[in-house]
């Protein structure tokens, strides 16, 4: 959007997300959005029950929930998931500086890795919340196998984690649309090398650059 300057020489591009990662991300996003949009009328049933067919919404929510972990799992576990797995290790491993950066909400100096601590936390939260929402959703759907107190607890937990997901997704989308350079790498896969130098300097120093010419 703002790259009028360097037309003459081919830009050095760095691959940030391969096709497997991008596909997994967007399928996962589609699943999350479907679950969020069907979850709202299920939660506020007394209001939306007049407008929508609850049973249909319930079935869409249920089946989307059942298949939601699939894109991430397939991308992670297949032979094609080398980058997926190495990035998962990357979001798990934090330096002390990164912890401090997150505690100070970005107001401390940091030579960022491929992902900044906020992005790392978001990735871990997403996977953990999928697990928690999947299990509690299972309890809510097949409640007969669980004691009543667990059904009640699963209801509370499902609702609380759903609320956290709404907050996280809202923040994620807001940051994505206001950081178009980063956002573009989830569409096309690459970032400019100068973006790397500016936003992910620690990534360049300890990782091999995979470049291709544009």
């Amino acid at each position, binding site marked *: 959007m703002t790259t009028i300057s360097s037309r003459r020489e081919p830009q050095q591009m760095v691959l940030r997300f391969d096709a497997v990662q991008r596909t997994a991300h967007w399928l996962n996003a589609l699943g999350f959005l479907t679950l969020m949009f069907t979850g709202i009328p*299920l*939660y506020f*049933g*007394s209001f939306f*029950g*007049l407008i*929508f*067919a*609850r*049973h*249909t919404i319930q079935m869409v929510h249920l089946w989307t929930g059942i298949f939601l972990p699939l894109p991430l799992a397939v991308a992670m576990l297949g032979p094609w998931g080398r980058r997926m797995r190495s990035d*998962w290790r990357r*979001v*798990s*491993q*934090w*330096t*002390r*500086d*990164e*912890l401090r950066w997150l505690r100070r909400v970005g107001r401390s100096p940091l030579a960022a890795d491929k992902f900044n601590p906020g992005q*790392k*936390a978001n990735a*871990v*939260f997403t*996977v*953990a*919340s999928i*697990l*928690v929402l999947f*299990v*509690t959703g299972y*309890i*809510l759907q097949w*409640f*007969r196998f669980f004691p*009543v*107190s*667990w*059904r*009640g*607890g*699963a*209801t*509370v*937990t*499902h*609702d*609380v*984690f*759903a*609320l956290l997901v709404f907050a996280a997704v809202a923040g994620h989308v807001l940051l994505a649309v206001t950081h178009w350079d980063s956002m573009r790498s989830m569409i096309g896969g690459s970032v400019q090398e100068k973006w790397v130098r500016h936003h992910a300097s620690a990534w360049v120093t*300890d990782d091999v650059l995979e470049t291709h010419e544009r």
Partner: protein
Amino acid sequence: MSATTPSSPEKVNVGRRLFLGLTALGAAGVVFGADAQNFVGKTFGSGFAALLPGGDRFRIYSITGSYPSIKPKQFRLKVSGLVNQPATFTLADLQAMPSLDMVKTFQCVTGWRVPDVPWRGVPLSHLLKSAGIRPGAGAISFDSYDHADSESLTIEQAHLADVIVAYEMYRAPITREHGGPVRLLVPQMYGYKSLKWLSGIRVVDRVQPGYWELNGYPVNGWLDGTTGATNPHPQLS
């Protein structure tokens, strides 16, 4: 790490900690969430608990996807079947009968619950007594204005003192979404037994499983989870 990169900082597996922390929180929520909710409800009041996600609030279910709209003036409750005196009652008729006030916890089979709901209605036993049950009757079937839901109770269950044909909830007419103007209330059983938009009471020879029972719910939906001493259809539970 080689000696040429001495600045390579020590790494902490924050991902694992965060992941385990969140999933442990989820597991604790499942096991202790209901108790925590009760505690919040008792300490700060159910009104406050209802504001929290997952708090003490009704989830409105409807089989048909909409709520029947019944004008109170046009409401009729038909009592029929194996009775000496079949009858049709208006809302005013019901309101003129002896009534029972009670405050009960509404417990859904799927887990959510709403404590301290005040109800008022006619004891079902009163309606059955005035209709006069004929010999050979073994159960009561209930019909709904939504033409989809149905419920049933054994004769013994129907005579429990707290089973009422309710017309007030929270000291006001029952709203459409909660099954108004008139619904069944069986407080000792899960919510699905408390049929909404009640239109008919039929005395029949034996229990006919209702909508939810045909979809796998226990015919005897006792809150304590037992199938009940009078359970004639245990195979469905």
